[in-house]
């Protein structure tokens, strides 16, 4: 064992022995969960609720179209488009959008839920978020107009680019430090 290793081991032992500082305030897991927004690709974190594109259309028109345009075209370079580019990723002019690029429908829900409408984030109910998520997916031809999205069905929606992501290869990197 090198000196460096034994020093590390010593430091780890020392730390293991150290008693907690106790500066944190304990909270119950339930209390903590109330502040939890995170939705995972397998659907963990999704609250109960439901909606389809038909129910979402008036909400989208009232709360999203102002920036993202009537059919998710976006507005110039100001506001991102939400549609288009499916099949373009391997071409010289790839177009990234929710439809062409995003691997998980849960990410669409999570992002709208936490961050949209941009100027009034977290103002939508869970049902409204399911419904406008359905609109965005419907505009991309990924779900039908009356296909219900809820906490069970949303994670099962297969996005066109679901298999488009690979782990890093770091081709210029010779060996990793740490």
């Amino acid at each position, binding site marked *: 064992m090198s000196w460096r290793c034994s020093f590390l081991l010593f430091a780890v032992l020392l730390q293991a022995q150290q008693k907690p500082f106790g*500066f944190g305030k304990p909270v*119950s897991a339930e209390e903590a969960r109330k502040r939890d*927004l995170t939705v995972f690709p397998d659907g963990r974190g999704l609250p109960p609720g439901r909606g389809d594109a038909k129910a979402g259309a008036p909400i989208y028109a009232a709360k999203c179209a102002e920036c993202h345009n009537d059919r998710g075209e976006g507005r110039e370079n100001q*506001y991102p488009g939400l549609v288009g580019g499916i099949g373009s990723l*391997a071409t010289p002019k790839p177009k990234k959008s*929710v439809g062409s690029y995003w691997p998980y429908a849960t*990410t669409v829900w999570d992002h709208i839920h936490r*961050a949209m409408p*941009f100027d009034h984030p977290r103002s939508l109910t869970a049902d409204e978020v399911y419904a406008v998520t359905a609109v965005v997916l419907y505009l991309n031809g990924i779900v039908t107009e009356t296909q219900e999205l809820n906490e069970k069905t949303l994670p099962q929606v297969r996005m066109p680019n679901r298999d488009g992501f690979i782990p890093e290869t770091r081709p210029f990197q010779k060996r990793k430090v740490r």
Partner: protein
Amino acid sequence: MSVKDEDRRRFLALGAGLLSTTACTTTKPASESGAHMRPHGLRSPHEKVARVIRELTASPGTGSSRTPLQHLYGTITPSDLHYERHHAGVPAIDPLQHELLVHGLVEQPLTFSMAALRRFPSVSRTCFLECSGNVIGDLRGNPPPTVQDSHGLLSCTEWTGVSLRMVLEEARLKPEAKWLIAEGADASRMARSIPVEKALDDALLVYGQNGEALRPEQGYPLRLILPGFEGNMNVKWLDRLLVTDQPAMSVKETANYTELLPSGKAEVLTFVMEARSVITSPSGGQQVLNGFNEITGLAWTGLGKITKVEVSTDNGKTWQVAALQEPILDKSVVRFRLPWEWKGEETIIQSRCTDESGYVQPSRDEFIALRGINAGYHYNGIKCWQVKADGHVVAV
């Protein structure tokens, strides 16, 4: 400041001197004319350094501001010139109301007030922060005119706070803990997934920058610092850490900050900023003069320390080893320098760095051959500046 600026100032100083001898009746001795003291220092009105701001949408606060690298000396970025990249503006946070929640796969969920976090043993370290979208104009073949425009999403400062490992040990991670979801209190509650190995290695929860409390634009009152990892993961206004067994695949680790390759596949969860360097003087928009010019610039790597910077002044035909300013710090910028005699020839100057992992900064062509021009992030190709026959420097 360009060599020409320097000369002009010397000339102006000379002029002022002449003026004061001829019009001596109106000139007061310096000892009588000094200004009063003031609680906060300001730059000399002669210094015009400023960030360049680019708002991306009509909504405030989406966009970036870039550090004026060509006007800075040494290695430390003044806090008010540190680059910014926000996705939903800068929140106004009362530190007395701010608390960090640590929950998920821990034995005991905890909240920490700012006062509680400041009670822990503190630690300071210098490291660079860089947006992984930096220099993307160069990758796409549209190099912007100045080094501020091309490389300004890079800054380097001293951060002070508490080891994240120490805070996590208070809550006691469960064995299944593999990832942390770090979430900020900005309007979009931006969140990123952090591998637990990094969290337990050199990650910090910081409340200080360059000797004072964080500025609001840098995450006041609490920011995550992950030395060497892409800027976006260093979550500002941090108020929640969810410990989990898998990444969240949030919008900023799927839609953005993923690298699209020519095959149409994209690399995901790419965190480390690899070795880069750039000549900051003489650089785009500046002027070299006949005779002696100092070539100087910055090099940095998320893989540890920079070990070598080479500079070419003849369009890549020969390379000379530049002097590195000590101390060379882990995951921090290093200033390099090379004296240069310019004899009026049109040429290209460029720098290339190597780090302690053996990584050598690739050329743009080498990068594109493997990664294409649409990767969008983590471009670190060698930067070339063209020196025209009249001494004017332009981006190429």
